[in-house]
């Protein structure tokens, strides 16, 4: 295969890999494509309260299961003086608080941070009981209620085609206050709520069903009671219904706390127990949400990445990851424009120095020290020193100059000059050496051309590297470097003219 074809195939592979990983990270792990994106994180607090009898107390609260459209970012328990444990039992998670002696009003808190992600709330199939317990209505006085129930079932069945539509019809009928049968049933079951009655009628119709407890996520809601949804089994799968409207499907902002199974709260050794919820929403940077929601599962992509490094190293990497972008700028300007720079990647190093010092400060310090340094080097070269000793002397001079500039500017109140650090200094000393050779060999004109070219490229590279989008992408999607690599490889195959050559060869076109 020709080298050119290899380049294109390799570039295509790299692009697919890099872009694929990026897309995966964005859609599956929720990493934001644009900087400054915020996500809504709901903080749900469950407050368990009861009156303790004075003896041993044990309170068990069913905890929400992980669900598809909600990412649990963190949970906290506060329960002063209580022993705390989470038990896993029959596919259920329950928080258990316990204490040897407790009396008076007790309050226990469980707090949960969740983030809503798009997608279906429930997964099928689920190993839930499909057992149906028919209501016992044997007594004579119950005959009317029984009749009413079965007449509702019959009416619903007549107006529906399958289990799903039947349930809708039934729920609508139960919500209709003009319906005589319905009024009779609710009259009999005065102490039961709507969902209880609906479950009863569904059982009479031989449809497996249970309740789903949960919350509607709305900002700043306090002392909420859990709300119920109905879930029925249509022979193949579980279908959720909003009970009062009879519409299938989980409402969008509904957070499922408990699905089927046991009671929500069990308290031993206490009375008047209740669970209330409060909900508040926070806007949190999207990347933090993504990091939190993936750290639990230890996604390999995140775990084996720079995010696993300590924060300090991460900030260094943030800078290092920008180097390829700067390199791309140099490649573009050299291959497509034909700008002459001193050294291929010195402009990138200069740009990094500028990132540390800020552009204007960096530029003025660079030019100032370059001029002073060149002058010093010219003097040193007359002293017949060996080259290595002379370069060392230039480095020392540059350090002294930088120190002096820092002190003077600090006294003058310009604090930015203090940011000149180790890294720019070496680049400067090196540049001065190269420039002075250039001066001797090709004259000052060439020095101005090359230093100017280098500075121009450095400023452009700095401008690109400090772009907030570029910073965001290189740090959060380092796999995009593969795409960058592919781009550079393809540019390396470019055999067209450079912009500079359109001017250089213009006299050949007559």
């Amino acid at each position: 295969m020709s080298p050119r074809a290899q380049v294109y195939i390799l570039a295509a592979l790299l692009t697919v890999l890099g872009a694929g990983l990026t897309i995966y990270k964005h859609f599956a792990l929720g990493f934001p494509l644009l900087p400054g994106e915020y996500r809504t994180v709901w903080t749900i607090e469950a407050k368990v309260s009861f009156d303790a009898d004075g003896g041993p107390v044990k309170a068990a609260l069913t905890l929400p299961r992980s669900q598809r459209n909600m990412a649990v970012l963190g949970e906290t328990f506060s329960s002063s003086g209580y022993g705390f444990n989470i038990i896993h039992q029959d596919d259920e998670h329950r928080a258990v608080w316990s204490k040897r002696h407790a009396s008076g009003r007790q309050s226990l808190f469980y707090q949960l941070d969740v983030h809503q992600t798009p997608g279906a709330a429930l997964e099928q199939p689920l190993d839930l009981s499909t057992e149906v317990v028919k209501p016992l209505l044997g007594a004579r006085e119950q005959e009317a209620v029984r009749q009413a129930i079965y007449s509702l079932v019959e009416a619903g069945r007549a107006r529906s085609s399958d289990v799903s539509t039947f349930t809708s019809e039934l729920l609508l009928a139960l919500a209709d206050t003009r319906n005589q049968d319905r009024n009779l049933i609710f009259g009999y079951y005065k102490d039961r709520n709507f969902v209880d009655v609906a479950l009863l009628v569904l059982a009479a119709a031989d449809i497996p069903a249970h309740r789903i407890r949960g919350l509607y996520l709305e900002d700043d809601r306090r002392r909420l009671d859990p709300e119920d949804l109905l879930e029925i089994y249509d022979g193949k799968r579980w279908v959720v219904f909003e009970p009062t409207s009879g519409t299938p499907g989980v409402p969008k902002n509904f957070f499922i706390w408990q699905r089927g199974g046991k009671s929500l709260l069990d308290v031993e050794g206490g009375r008047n127990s209740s669970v209330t919820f409060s909900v508040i929403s926070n806007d949190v940077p999207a990347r933090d949400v993504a990091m939190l929601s993936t750290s639990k599962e230890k996604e390999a992509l995140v775990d084996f990445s720079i995010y696993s490094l300590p924060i300090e190293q991460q900030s260094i990497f943030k800078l290092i990851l920008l180097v390829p972008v700067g390199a791309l700028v140099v490649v573009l300007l050299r291959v497509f424009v034909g700008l002459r720079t001193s050294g291929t990647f010195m402009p990138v190093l200069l740009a990094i120095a500028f990132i540390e010092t800020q552009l204007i400060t960096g530029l003025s310090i660079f030019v100032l020290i370059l001029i002073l340094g060149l002058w010093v080097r010219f003097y040193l070269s007359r002293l017949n020193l060996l080259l290595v000793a002379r370069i060392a002397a230039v480095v020392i001079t540059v350090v002294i100059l930088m120190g002096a500039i820092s002190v003077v500017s600090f006294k003058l109140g310009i604090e930015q000059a203090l940011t000149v650090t180790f890294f720019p200094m070496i680049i400067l000393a090196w540049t001065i050496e190269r420039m002075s050779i250039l001066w001797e060999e090709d004259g000052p004109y060439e020095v101005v051309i090359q230093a100017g070219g280098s500075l121009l490229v450095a400023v452009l590279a700095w401008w690109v590297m400090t772009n907030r989008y570029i910073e965001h992408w290189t740090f959060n999607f380092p796999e995009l470097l593969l795409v960058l690599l592919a781009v550079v490889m393809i540019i390396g195959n470019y055999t067209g003219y450079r912009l500079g050559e359109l001017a250089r060869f213009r006299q050949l076109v007559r």
Partner: protein
Amino acid sequence: MRLPPFFSGGLVSPFKLRKLGILGMNARNVRYIARYNDRDKYPIVDDKLNTKRAARRYRIPVPDLIAAFETQPTRTRIMQVIEPLQQFVIKPARGSGGKGILVIVGREGDDYLKPSGSKVTALDIQRHVSNIHSGLYSLGGKPDRCMVEALVDFDPVFDKYSFEGVPDIRVIVFRGFPVMAMLRCSTHDSDGKANLHQGAVGVGIDLATGKASHAVQRGLRVDIHPDTKMPFADLEVPGWKDLVNLAASCYEMTGLGYLGCDIVLDRRRGPLLLEANARPGLAIQIANGIGLRTRLEHIESMTLEQLEKNVEERVNYSMDYFAARATL
């Protein structure tokens, strides 16, 4: 200060350049240098001591080597070598683009004279040698070797076309076939240097006849040398065929497919190979007023049989095929 040519005079369409067969830098790098020049052959041309050794093996005449210093020499050793000489050249073995070459044409008391007439002290020479050894002029600053070469006794035929400097002839050789040639004449403007971008005159030489066909200074056509006022139309390189032969045989010597040979004319010895270049520049196109690409592509389209010609046959073919249209 002059503005660089980039900013004055506008741009031309890349399609026009393409149509005229002008070779661009990117195409040169990707299509010719990367494809036809093996990297392991570079040391032969990048190190002038290696070039000299190879040239001796292939009986290609070169300027005489007086001494070569492998390590940083002591002052006395340099002086021992230099003392009996009136004229000599000091160069770094791995310098590029003519960097670090010190030419001494005479002596005045304790001092040495450069072609421009300025004086150089013995101390300056020692410093220059020390700089060469430290790698000041070599690529990447690698420690370098220093060579002392005999000054070429230039054929006076170009005296009228050169000012304060050394004229040399650059021939581009592609797969053994000479494809284009130019003469570089230094001017007052170029400070005695033969670099076109520093203001030297580039004179395109017709491969068939050795006569000047076109001349350019700083991108503008000229008919006479700006300092000596001599018309280039009269310029003819003597012993042209020998010179082209020498250039073409550098192909066998270096094994490089795309090659620039710098040749000078010695009064007694004729053409001498000064150095070979694996990355020759593209200014030769401006000097000749024509593009290289069409010629290179013509040779690329040759059959294997055609490529297996010997030096003589290749030179004859090129002379026939690449004859120029004079514009002077």
